[in-house]
């Protein structure tokens, strides 16, 4: 069971994400943004938080054009699993793997605190360790986390049960309180909050650990 964590210049949650995967039982490879391919046998790719390329142009825009992102797109098009957290979510929307975009927070402030997230669906490898309707505490730390998608996209996300998490109190202006969404095949998750920062007693909360445990359960070879 192998995870690859992509490292961009400016990533700062890559090691936290690697530790969260390792704790759940994954063997983790760190993959540099200039690599043109993922290691063989990777079950899931983690695109971590941070400030890839200094957030120049738009958050995630330049990272999305890096050699490794082409490999990540190919991986997801083959049906591979991926999770993008915070800047990783921004990158996955910029690549087009996930729909929508992340705008500047409506209040214009960078927000760094633990927020309540409602689990909207337990029907995914990422969320099956929770029950739909559960409220969990997960930290956010972003300036551009205001999820935007047109009405048609939002309807599709709702109709296909692809909204993974919503904020109990919308901190950033996101459409429909959306904090995280799934791809159409439910194998790619993008979310602004940081489950890897709530995966150890030392973090002050462990509500995020179930996400990594659930993934390990689904991806364990039979």
């Amino acid at each position, binding site marked *: 069971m192998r995870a690859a964590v992509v490292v961009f210049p400016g990533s700062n949650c890559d090691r936290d994400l690697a530790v969260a995967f390792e704790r759940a039982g994954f063997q983790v490879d760190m993959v540099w943004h200039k690599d043109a391919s993922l290691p063989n046998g990777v079950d899931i790719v983690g695109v971590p938080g941070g400030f890839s390329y200094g957030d120049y*142009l738009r958050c995630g825009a*330049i990272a999305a054009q890096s050699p490794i992102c082409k490999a990540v797109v190919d991986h997801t098009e083959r049906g591979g699993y991926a999770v993008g957290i915070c800047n990783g979510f921004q990158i996955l929307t*910029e690549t087009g793997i996930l*729909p*929508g*975009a992340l*705008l*500047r927070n409506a209040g*214009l402030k960078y927000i760094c605190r633990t927020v309540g997230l409602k689990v909207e669906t337990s029907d995914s490898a990422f969320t099956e360790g929770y029950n739909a309707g559960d409220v969990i505490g997960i930290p956010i730390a972003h300036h551009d986390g205001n999820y935007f998608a*047109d009405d048609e996209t939002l309807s599709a996300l709702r109709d296909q049960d692809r909204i993974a998490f919503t904020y109990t109190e919308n901190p950033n202006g996101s459409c429909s309180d959306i904090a995280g969404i799934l791809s159409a095949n439910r194998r790619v998750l993008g979310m602004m909050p940081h489950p890897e920062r709530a995966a150890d007693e030392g973090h002050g909360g462990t509500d995020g650990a179930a996400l990594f445990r659930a993934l390990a359960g689904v991806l364990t070879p039979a």
Partner: protein
Amino acid sequence: MKARVHVMLKNGVLDPQGEAVRHALGAMGFDKVEGVRQGKVIDLDLADGATEADVVEMCEKLLANTVIERYEIELV
């Protein structure tokens, strides 16, 4: 050839930075400002042989995110 690309948020997409500028202008006494939208201007120095179609492709692939932004190209 030079190209100037204007990138603006699409109508209907909230521009909180533009709103903040509008509030600041109002606080300064400029009370006739009804709306502010903030965008980007990107100047490209292009080698001979570059075409407008190339610039369109650059906009579609990188310079603008067409989910939220529209762009205009000015060749100079």
